[in-house]
């Protein structure tokens, strides 16, 4: 108890082989995860991958089947939820309908018999800009306001770790963007470790320092937003975060560059971006990193000409104009359609369906994945 009253400081959280089984179904499978103190950590994954279950085990609302939850070195996996210096912002807010906003926010302080409640609650309500609403009931607030009350109610306890389970899920897009910035600001201000669950990849990338991409109860990859986007470790990650073109190839030689035969053309990929260095592979490249030219013309972008790869013989199959960019689907001679995003900045030619084109990319914009993985894993329908 006394330990939780010390001034807030984010704590290091480690999950060790954490497993949750519902009868036969394995919801979380031997999960290992380290979250650094004071981090804004995002848990990202498709519906049903075990995000909420993981969060509930950290909060103590679900008992792990096996494994450890280490908070600053102590195993808290078997502690009751009210004995853990961890607070949760629930997906549906779960505000107490019979208490007003003030009492909702004061709930945790009162339970721990912490004195001087009023100034603390007032200060917290100011932080979330709800000072004027203190005497209202939750049902008299808008969704965004309720969300902020839920945040204040958890934050006021100065937990070592704050768990957020898709707290922005119910908000409209504009309010959502606004709350994302707000959350990020508050986290920087209070310095508490945030673990934010979401299935919105954009949300995870804008807010988090570190993202863990989950799928089927395991972490597929963990890293910073740029690292995950530029150098995905699995086909699932490459498709779930943004879009990817995955082209079949075979490794010819492996050195500082891994040289791959791609449908008769040679492509070089830097070794640090290759997850496999032999046999069959997927050569991955993001749609906005691909340059499109009329058939036979040289690529114009600096660098592409020296270190790049050119695949000839494409035909434009579909064109979609979406304002800032134009999306092309290019049919390659081996039947695959590649996606290409071209910025509408006037520097490139426009193409129409049926136009013969070549596609170009730079080696350092590609990544190599194991061909044994499903090329469509993690794609949105």
């Amino acid at each position, binding site marked *: 108890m006394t330990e939780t009253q010390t001034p807030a400081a984010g704590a290091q959280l480690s999950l060790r082989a954490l497993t949750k089984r519902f009868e036969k179904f394995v919801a979380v499978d031997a999960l290992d995860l380290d979250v650094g103190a004071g981090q804004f950590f995002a848990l990202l994954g498709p519906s049903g991958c075990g995000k909420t279950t993981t969060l509930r085990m950290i*909060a*103590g*609302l679900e008992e792990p089947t096996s494994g450890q939850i280490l908070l600053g070195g102590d195993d808290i996996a078997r502690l*009751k*939820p*009210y004995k853990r210096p*961890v*607070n*949760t912002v*629930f997906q*549906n807010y*779960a*505000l*107490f*309908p*019979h208490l*007003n906003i003030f009492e909702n926010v004061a*709930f*945790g302080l009162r*339970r*721990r018999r912490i004195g001087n409640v009023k100034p603390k609650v007032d200060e917290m309500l100011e932080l979330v800009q709800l000072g004027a609403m203190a*005497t209202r*009931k939750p049902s008299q607030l808008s969704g965004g306001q309720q969300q902020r009350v839920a945040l204040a*109610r*958890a934050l006021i*306890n100065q937990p070592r770790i704050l768990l957020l389970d898709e707290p922005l899920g119910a908000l409209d897009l504009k309010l959502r963007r606004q709350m994302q910035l707000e959350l990020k600001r508050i986290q920087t201000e209070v310095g508490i470790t945030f673990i934010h669950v979401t299935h919105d990849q954009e949300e995870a990338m804008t807010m988090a320092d570190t993202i863990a991409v989950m799928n089927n109860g395991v972490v597929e990859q963990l890293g910073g937003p740029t690292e995950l986007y530029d150098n995905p470790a699995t086909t699932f990650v490459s498709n779930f975060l943004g879009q990817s073109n995955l082209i079949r190839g075979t490794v010819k030689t492996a050195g500082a560059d891994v040289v791959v035969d791609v449908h008769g053309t040679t492509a070089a990929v830097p070794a640090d971006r290759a997850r496999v260095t032999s046999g069959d592979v997927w050569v991955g490249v993001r749609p906005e990193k691909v340059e499109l030219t009329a058939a036979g013309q040289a690529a114009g972008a600096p660098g592409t000409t020296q270190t790049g790869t050119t695949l000839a013989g494409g035909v434009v199959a579909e064109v979609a104009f979406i304002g800032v960019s134009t999306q092309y689907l290019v049919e390659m001679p081996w039947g695959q359609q590649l996606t290409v995003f071209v910025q509408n900045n006037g520097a490139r030619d426009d193409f129409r369906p049926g136009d013969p084109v070549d596609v170009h990319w730079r080696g350092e914009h590609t990544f190599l994945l194991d061909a044994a993985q499903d090329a469509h894993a993690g794609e949105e329908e």
Partner: protein
Amino acid sequence: MTRVGRWAADHAVLFVAGLVLLYMFLPVSFVVLMSFNDPVSRLSYEFQGFTWDNWRNMCAPAGLCSSLLTSIQIGLAATLGATVLGTLAAFALVRHRFRGRKATSVLIFLPMATPEVVMGSSLLALFAAGGLAGRLGFWSILIAHIMFCLSFVVVTVKARLAGLDSTLEQASMDLYASEWTTFWRVTMPLVFPGIMAAAMLSFSLSFDDFIITNFNHGNTITFPMFVWGAAQRGIPPQVNVVGSLMFLTALLLVLVSTGIGRRKQAA
């Protein structure tokens, strides 16, 4: 449309509502009126003169007040018993998974669906088989009342509990409240209106019961039994006084509870 026609259309709902209210309250107002009646003979049911006598001498008819007291005692005891047992049962049925839960739910519902005559007579048979035929009275009535009130309490509280979001209790535990504190600070305040409604329902069911009581009362006379007996010879006007008092009490309870509700809203 004429101005009068439009006025009539605008107020049609009010007019119909007024008629319905009149329909509902005419008998009640008749009871209140008759409580001030000064009848010439015991068998006359017409209003023959105004008097305060019935109110002043409420207990004048032999046995009226003692039967009233008996009914109130049984009503309160049955309410307490049924509400406590029924609330516990409702919690068990909604919150715990155990073998025979479904069957229990159905069985508890059964007394509500059984005709009272059947229930009353079979209870009598049960008491008699248990060798209690000569000792029927306060306790046998109380046992019978608790039994049939129980179903109503379970059904009412269960409905309230099922509508309660269990993440509220999880949120409470997450915010440093133990199971015990969570029950008293979150669960109970949210379920309480249901329990209160169940208690009031129990009291009025018990106070009102004639059929089942008639089988199992032995020599004990409850208020409905008294009125029934008196009706053979002519109902004393004091019975209307009791009726009026019941009505006033109910009215007061409703006013107080809505008053509290409104104050809570404003706070």
